């Protein structure tokens, strides 16, 4: 079956399945988005909003919120597959592992980009952020999100079958995403004109991160599904 559809066909099928499930269950909309907004509020409580600290730290707080929300989204996405031996069923379905992986990455990227769109409105309203340098901002958001989804899907699948996945996934994933947090935060600071340097090297670094993990994930998903 996978030979007729190919890797991209499998990826599309998988992504559509995940997005359809999300549209029906609305876990992202009903739980992850409110959680992300709550984190924005908590940052405001922790850092006095009247002293300008909040405004100065907006890019960093935005991306930390995205990372926390990504962990929840990943747990949901792979928790679904771990139930009732669905991962085994996927392995036996004849779909290509790389296709399954790319499908999960696509669905996660779309969900996280939608979440970020809501968060942009959140920081614009709550932290009084004025957005400039939109092209760079979009490039950074896309490459960073793709990187988070690409690296996250490898560890999400790995942790899915472990009983301690709730604690293990953040421990594995967040240090791995440290360069994404640094690059996305600095890139956003440049695009918001808080640093007088070019922001495109940061976008390039994020792009390299995403491509490296997309390639690695596509290669590693077969042993991951078969043995891990």
């Amino acid at each position, binding site marked *: 079956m996978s030979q007729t559809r190919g890797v991209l066909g499998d990826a599309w099928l998988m992504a559509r399945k995940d997005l359809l499930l999300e549209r029906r269950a609305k876990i992202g909309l009903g739980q992850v988005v409110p959680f992300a907004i709550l984190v924005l509020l908590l940052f405001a409580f922790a850092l006095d909003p009247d002293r300008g600290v909040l405004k100065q730290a907006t890019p960093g707080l935005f991306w930390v919120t995205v990372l926390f929300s990504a962990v929840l989204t990943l747990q949901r996405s792979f928790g679904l597959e771990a139930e009732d031996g669905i991962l085994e069923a996927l392995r036996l379905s004849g779909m290509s592992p790389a296709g399954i992986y790319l499908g999960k990455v696509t669905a996660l990227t779309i969900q996280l980009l939608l979440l970020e769109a809501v968060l942009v409105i959140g920081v614009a309203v709550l932290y009084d952020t004025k957005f400039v340098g939109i092209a760079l901002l979009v490039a950074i958001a896309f490459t960073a999100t793709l990187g988070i989804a690409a690296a996250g899907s490898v560890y999400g699948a790995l942790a899915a079958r472990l009983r*301690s996945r709730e604690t293990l996934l953040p421990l594995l994933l967040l*240090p*791995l995403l440290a360069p994404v947090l640094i690059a996305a935060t600095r890139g956003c600071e440049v695009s918001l004109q808080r640093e007088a340097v070019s922001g495109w090297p940061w976008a390039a*670094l994020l792009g390299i991160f995403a491509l490296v993990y997309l390639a690695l994930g596509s290669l590693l998903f077969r042993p991951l599904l078969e043995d891990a």
Partner: protein
Amino acid sequence: MTATKMNSAQSVSPAPTGTGSRGTRLLGAVAVCFLAVAVVYGLFISPPDSQLGNTIRIIYMHVPTVMAAYLAFLTTAVSSAMYLWKRTEFWDLLGSSGAEIGVLFFTVTIIDGALWGKVTWGVFWRWEPRLTTSAVLLIMYLGYLAVRAIPADPKTRATRCAIIGLVAVVNIPIVHKAVDWWRGLHQGKTVLGTLNPEMGGTQLFAMYSALTAGILVCVWLLIHRFRAGYLAERASDLGLGQALEERRLESSSTSSGSKVSGDDS
């Protein structure tokens, strides 16, 4: 004749009961010699640095520990790739040994880096690029060890660890670049950046002795950890075999007991 052959074969390759061998003892002795030379030259004979003063003596320890840590993580990366290709216990055990030893050396690196920071900057931590990178990588490999510690079928565990080993090592240059650019904007003195490139005489000798000692100790620890891991696997196999034998005996005695009671009724 056959019996003699078998006896000689047994005497050539007896089952290992410890982690030491003639080779590791020799390696250990050489490492101790280099360590002694490094301590004598690093602490007593070499003069203080013109810029760093006596804090250069911390650097004599910092450089070898960070090099040893990277050597250990490189071992883990190569072993992880080899495990996914060959699927043998050797590569799995070597990979996990590398991760443990790497974590040990990185912890020492962070501690001696922080001590250097306290003397030079007056604070233990100042987001110096190499220290920051080390901290991120240390936590990444702590995750590897956390997965390693989860009880699982050996093959499943080995595959999980091999995947983490590969995913983590690919991140090392990216973390380096990101942290370098990040701190490049506010760069101050760095631990390694303060080294005088024209270091010579006894200072250079102390540094090279310490570096050789660090790498030898790392290799020595790796071999011992690998062998300890191998013995632990054999011990667990033995324990499993014994448990199976006990259950078999229990079930046979229960069935014979029920037979007797059946006869009674």
